[in-house]
């Protein structure tokens, strides 16, 4: 048995890092248990000639394909969208693209506005100061004045438009539709010990330059300097409860597979929208036979992914190809609900600059645009550096039958039951995807594309994991309250994307982190009576 700590955080990803840093100023003893390692940026794929190949191997976005010792398998056979993540200090931000939009004010009020899902128990104004604090810590780039948002500042100037951004922006202008330089978690200037983006183009397999804000190089160095201890290669099996129904600590395996019990006064779970319900469901006891914090029965339910549509155009002129960050410009022309459409809510377009040489070959060969044999090289050159387009990120509405449960057979390397995903695409999502494909095709054609390649939903695109331990005021309809504390267990908090009530039509991480900072702030403001 180890000494008790004041705060024990499980998971060192986007949210675990933010909450650790914010709580560090209390001088409490804070320990974070993380199943992965610290990453070494000099080993990231962009440092080698095989950088694209490694995206299919040890740096794949799929934990099942990667199969690192630090990963856990996910049974997602019963889902049209498979789970993408990364397990290390920095969590999935090691691989994320760095698209960094905020939610809109309307996203917190979908029931009131559109009669679907639920309103959030908090609003945009509540999160606004925490968005700004997070922007400073992560170092965001963008351009103030986006007409799709309430006023917000940017820490650094936007990433370049490039040839691809310019071509597609002209398409949007032709149709009179909104676009704006994306807010990104990419440093365009030297910032907080990090160097500026040099357009390596391999952001989604780790940024060797340190320009992309993964939390191992943003929050964590500050949190560690302030006294937080990160224990890597420590995989938590379950959260234990005492006779009073409070969390007493966690049981975990260290790097040698030795089991430990770590007592704690407060437990904060930050394992993401799949890892968190998995841990809660694995934490059964006499008091919580269906998993800790689960008297509502909602742990693992309402899984939301953001179905993605990919719409790529083939242009006559060479564009950026593999050069430049994946982030570029966005459009929120179809973001808010329009009663004239056959779906509610909406989506964001995020523009992709292009593809690497291998990805170009594969896209061409598997879609019959590049023949096998004679003609390969001519056809390849018609595509190389000439593909650019966009993805449509569709708001996914919560549905209780979309679940994370425990797989009856599959386990990780420590024998801990692995998560199983059951997910179906709703009719609303299907219609939204169709709309996104059709409108983007118009944009690309207006921009001069001569051919359009589409995929909807993107099968490997389960990179946003939300909703599986939702927040709310009613303990029967939610897992945590309006400041992240479990309704059932008063010293147990959840800070990751699981607590989302709805998904909005934007990438979630900026909101996940703003929420984590807001929850930390709520805790600091209530330290004297945190468990009342």
């Amino acid at each position, binding site marked *: 048995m180890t000494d008790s700590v004041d705060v024990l955080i499980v998971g060192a990803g986007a949210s675990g890092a933010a909450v650790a840093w914010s709580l560090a100023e209390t001088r409490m003893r804070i320990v974070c248990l993380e199943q992965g390692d610290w990453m070494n940026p000099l080993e990231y794929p*962009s*440092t*080698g*000639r*095989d*950088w*694209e*190949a490694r995206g*299919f191997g040890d740096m794949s976005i799929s934990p099942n394909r990667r199969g690192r010792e630090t990963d856990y398998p996910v049974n997602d056979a019963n889902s049209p969208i498979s789970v993408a993540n990364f397990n290390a200090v920095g969590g999935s931000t090691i691989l994320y693209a760095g698209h960094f939009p905020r939610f809109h*004010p*309307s996203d*917190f*009020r979908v029931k*009131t*506005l559109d009669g679907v899902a639920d309103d959030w128990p908090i609003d945009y104004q509540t999160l606004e100061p925490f968005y700004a604090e997070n922007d400073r810590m992560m170092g965001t780039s963008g351009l103030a004045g986006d*007409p*799709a*948002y309430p006023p917000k500042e940017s820490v650094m100037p936007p990433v*370049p*438009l*490039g*040839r691809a951004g*310019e071509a597609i*922006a*002209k398409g*949007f*202008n032709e149709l*009179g539709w*909104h*676009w*704006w*330089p994306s807010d990104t978690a990419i440093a365009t200037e030297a910032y907080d010990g990090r160097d500026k983006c*040099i*357009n*390596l*183009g*391999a952001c989604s397999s780790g940024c*060797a*330059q340190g320009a992309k804000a993964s939390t191992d190089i943003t929050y964590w160095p500050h949190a560690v300097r302030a006294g937080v201890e990160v224990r890597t290669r420590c995989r938590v099996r379950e959260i234990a409860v005492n006779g009073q129904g409070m969390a007493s600590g966690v049981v975990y395996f260290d790097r040698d597979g030795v089991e430990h019990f770590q007592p704690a006064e407060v437990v904060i779970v930050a394992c993401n929208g799949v890892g968190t319900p998995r841990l809660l469901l694995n934490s059964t006891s006499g008091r919580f036979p269906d998993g800790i914090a689960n008297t509502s029965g909602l742990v693992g339910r309402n899984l939301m992914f953001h179905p993605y549509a990919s719409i790529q155009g083939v242009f006559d002129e060479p564009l950026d190809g593999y*050069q*430049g960050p994946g982030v570029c410009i966005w459009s*929120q*022309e179809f*973001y*808010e609900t329009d009663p004239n459409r056959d779906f509610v809510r909406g989506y964001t377009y995020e523009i992709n*600059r292009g593809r690497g*040489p*291998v990805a170009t*070959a*594969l896209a061409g*060969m*598997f879609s019959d645009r590049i*023949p*096998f*044999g*004679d003609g*390969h*090289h001519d056809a390849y*050159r018609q595509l*190389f550096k000439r593909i650019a387009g966009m993805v449509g990120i569709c708001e996914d509405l919560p549905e209780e039958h979309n679940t994370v449960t425990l797989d009856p057979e599959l386990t990780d390397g420590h024998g801990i039951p692995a998560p199983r995903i059951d997910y179906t695409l709703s009719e609303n999502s299907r219609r939204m995807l169709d709309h996104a494909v059709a409108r983007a095709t118009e944009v690309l054609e207006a921009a001069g594309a001569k051919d359009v390649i589409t995929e909807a939903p993107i099968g490997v695109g389960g990179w946003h994991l939300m909703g599986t331990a939702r927040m709310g005021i009613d303990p029967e309809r939610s897992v945590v309250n309006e400041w992240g504390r479990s309704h059932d267990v008063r010293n147990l908090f959840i800070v990751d994307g699981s607590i989302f009530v709805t998904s909005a039509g934007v990438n979630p991480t900026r909101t996940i982190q703003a929420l984590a900072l807001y929850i930390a702030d709520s805790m600091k403001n209530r330290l004297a009576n945190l468990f009342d």
Partner: protein
Amino acid sequence: MADTIASDDPFSGDERRTLLALVGAVIPASAKHAVPGADDPAIAADIVATARPYHETIAAALSHLESMAMQRFDTGYADLDPVSRARLARELTRSRFAGVGTLVTITAQCYYRDDRVMQSLGMDARPPFPQGFDVPQGDWSLLDPVRRRGRIYKIP
């Protein structure tokens, strides 16, 4: 196995012959573009090394390809003319036979990192880091009409 080429190489001599015939048919050499085919010795060695962990599924695909060649042309796959080899390879890829997709993917990965191929595409033969690349800023005045249109977000 008598016909194994190297002790740690799981591909037999026959498998290797079929594999090289396949990758060379998928991406042949081109005098016009001054590039080797994927069966060039250096590229092929890279492909075989990269394919090792997937030997079982790839070997099954190669053996299926051999039977297709035998059934249709009464000869081994490697002895077919390049057009027939490419056609059979394409057919098997379309049928999503496990292992062919993997081999085609590995072929593209290894081919498009070869110095000669990269140079023929106008690329520097180097990894992206540490030099990075230049990306032009682009014309920011394109934002003028977006600004003129004004606010589009909803206040709930």
